[in-house]
């Protein structure tokens, strides 16, 4: 009970007082209408920008998609004209833009050249493996990364700090797919140590929805998730370490110690909540790079998700599919950014929410 009485007084010491009673009750009414509206409007503008960029990319930078598409097959002028007409490229730019907007808002992105399937259907099928890979890796790397970073900073200059900082810097400089290839070579393809499957998401002959099927899928995801987690973890730990070092000079930690809190209590109640703030912002910014990791790692481990779909689509090039995938990735990052802003406002009461 003593800890309760102490924690109610903490807001005086630090900007963020964790363990405040009734915190959960305050969550619902935490955001003002103004904050919510600003956030949604900002994201809507960003989405519109993405939509325009997408049109610009596919119609303006590449004014003759019919040549890309007809590579090898359509050689005569009539063939090219036929493709132009089918894609609506013989109309004015504004008409094309109007049609494109209609496509975006009705979700009608045409048919994939490669799979002869409607693009939204294809993306709907392939989105789950990507989420299964990226979500656990993101959560794990944030959790482990912030623990590692704060521990490094708390005893900075020590042996643990020095050795793990070197590790983090090296990991940060490593292409995540190269680490993937290395793990693949040692733990999947090697006849001795290769205990993990060499790729895919399911073993043949195992029903994906049965108990064995779920275990089998998890088994398939061990190596790719480890790869992504380790590479992301490096960056998050570096951010957390420097943010923690900043916080450690603050007076409210001294106050905490002066009133008799243990080292651990000062760390958990006062240092960590404040050090986490910059991490939230940077996680949001990093999401744009997280998507890249999904593309390369799915390619290395042949996981049938959106990333593998992207690297296949660009080889063809499957333009309708590529266009939709680009929109999906960008929209995901915009939405995730907005969520991060809300979380930030929850973590930091100084933000006018």
């Amino acid at each position, binding site marked *: 009970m003593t800890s309760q009485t102490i924690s109610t007084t903490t807001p005086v010491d630090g900007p963020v007082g964790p363990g405040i009673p009734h915190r959960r009750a305050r969550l619902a009414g935490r955001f003002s209408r103004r904050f919510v509206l600003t956030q949604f409007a900002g994201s809507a503008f*960003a989405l519109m920008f993405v939509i325009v960029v997408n049109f610009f990319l596919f119609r303006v930078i590449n004014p003759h998609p019919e040549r890309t598409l007809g590579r090898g097959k359509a050689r005569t002028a009539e063939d090219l004209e036929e493709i132009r007409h089918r894609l609506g490229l013989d109309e004015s730019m504004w008409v094309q833009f109007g049609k494109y907007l209609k496509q975006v808002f009705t979700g009608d992105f045409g048919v994939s050249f490669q799979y002869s399937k409607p693009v939204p259907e294809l993306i709907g099928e392939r989105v789950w493996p990507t989420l299964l890979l990226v979500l656990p890796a993101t959560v794990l790397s944030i959790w482990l990364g912030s623990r590692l970073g704060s521990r490094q900073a708390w005893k900075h200059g020590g042996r643990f700090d020095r050795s793990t900082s070197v590790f983090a810097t090296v990991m940060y400089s490593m292409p995540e797919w*190269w680490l993937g290839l290395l793990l693949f070579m040692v733990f999947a393809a090697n006849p001795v140590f290769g205990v993990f499957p060499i790729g895919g998401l399911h073993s043949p002959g195992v029903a994906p929805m049965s108990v064995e099927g779920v275990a089998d899928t998890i088994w398939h995801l061990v190596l790719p998730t480890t790869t992504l987690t380790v590479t992301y973890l490096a960056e998050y730990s570096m951010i957390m370490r420097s943010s923690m070092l900043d916080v450690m000079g603050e007076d409210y930690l001294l106050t905490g110690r002066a009133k008799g809190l243990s080292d651990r209590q000062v760390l958990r109640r006062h240092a960590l909540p404040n050090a986490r703030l910059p991490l939230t912002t940077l996680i949001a910014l990093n999401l744009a790079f997280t998507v890249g990791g999904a593309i390369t790692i799915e390619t290395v481990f042949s996981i049938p998700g959106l990333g593998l779909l992207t690297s296949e689509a660009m080889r063809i090039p499957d333009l309708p599919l590529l266009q939709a995938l680009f929109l999906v990735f960008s929209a995901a990052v915009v939405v995730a950014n907005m969520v991060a802003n809300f979380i930030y406002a929850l973590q930091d009461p100084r933000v006018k929410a």
Partner: protein
Amino acid sequence: MTTAPALPRRSSATALRWKLRREAWGRTWAKFRANRAGMVGLAVLLVFAVVAVFAPLLADSHALRVSSASGPILAPPSREYPLGTDDNGRSVLTLLIFGARVPLLVGLMATVISMVIGTIVGMASGMSDGWAGTILFRFTEWFIVIPFLPLALVLATLLGGSLLSIIVVIGITGWPATALVIRAQTFSVRERPFMERARVLGAGPWHLMSKHVFPNVLPLVFANTTLTVAGSVLAETTLSFLGFGDPTAVSWGTMLNAAFGTGAVSLGAWWALLPPGICVIAVVLAFTMAGQALEDIVNPRLEEGR
């Protein structure tokens, strides 16, 4: 820097300015020299630069051609082939030496593009109040949200896979982070007293930008450049790993692409996987260490924190 005059005896304003600048650079160099990680990074970079420039002297470029490859296929390291051979029977060491050229060239050239766009946009949005600055800032913010790799892949698909287009693709996807850094620095320069004085003396916006803001953000641009090259090298390697390099040019990324695509990795041919990967890591790490050392020196905000 192009207009360095022969110094006259009497200390004219120009001569004084150059003296001050030389001293400032000298101080920066002295601080950089004291930074061990930065010096290690610089040394590693020099080694790789020498290897890339003098590649034809270090190895026989004739051995790069698939048709004239004479070695056994995917042979492990031996006396004749110190790092083994690839799936075409070419020496991995020769490929490694020539493969240094593309990542370094693309990394540097793309960084120049990113820096020019980022510095201009950052300074412009930092200097102009009102809607123009706001629009530029929002534009930067939106651009930063667009995921890098999908954008680069789409651009590379649409522009084709030549060396030049890879440079352009990485260059125009890499500028927003720089723009934000430069914008923040421009804001802090803008509030300093000498700007006020120059404005009162009748300096126009162009004069303010080129004579006062630019020299003051320049050190930060350099530090940022070094860090951006690291990112650009990684980007080049990733694009060529995914099959977007110039297929005729050898680079560490295309070597890794081949090692993956032709099954060398599955067969456990570690000599096809480790050397190019370790070189990529070494170069990226070296640029990062040198860049962080520079940033520690020139970024006033970081210096306060230490």
